[in-house]
């Protein structure tokens, strides 16, 4: 399945785009997503390592399984406030 990942802040700048797509097998997890992103977008590798991922606007753990309809976003360390 194709997973679209929203990017923000330094990760967006590193990728030069607001979102990227990777192909995961069905029932792929956030862990699989991290690996696929590093493989397909090496310029994101440093950010993939320190980012959290949000699935449907909740922080996910690496074991969280993804579905085709999920909203997925890469959340580098936040600095609001």
């Amino acid at each position, binding site marked *: 399945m194709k997973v679209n990942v929203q990017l923000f802040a330094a990760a967006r700048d590193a990728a030069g785009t607001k979102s990227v797509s990777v192909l995961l097998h069905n029932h792929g997890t956030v862990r699989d997503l991290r690996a696929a992103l590093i493989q397909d977008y090496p310029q994101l590798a440093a950010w993939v390592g*320190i980012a959290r991922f949000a699935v449907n606007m909740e922080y996910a753990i690496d074991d969280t399984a993804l579905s085709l309809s999920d909203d997925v976003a890469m959340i*580098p360390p*936040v*600095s609001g406030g």
Partner: protein
Amino acid sequence: MITIVENSIDLDSVVRSVEDPAAGGVVLFLGTTRQFTRGRETLSLDYDCYREMALAKMEQLAEQARQRWPIVRCSLVHRIGHLGLTEASVAVAVSTPHRADAFDAAEWLIDELKKSVPIWKKENWADGTSQWVHPGSESS
């Protein structure tokens, strides 16, 4: 009132949003743009956010605060976009029957907001460089 705005935060409306006859005290926190950080000079800031999730997280924080303190009303407003020195990027307002709770809840809310709400700050330094702030990363 839980909202993300693109322009100056209207303090009066934030304070009015937490006024209530049940409240004996209001604590308002404003995060303001500081000129110097560890000796380095800032000219301005740019904030970006993952808007839908940021609003959802801010709502969750307000709900958690309500469970911990006897909050009468509570507002969280974050500004995004471009901010000059001394301008407020965030406002947290809490009203409670007794003041100690308002201090505790407001401080907890801003501390948690800074940990979990997907909003990012870019420092535009006086030396002409710009840099997204990502605490814990090498570049920040």
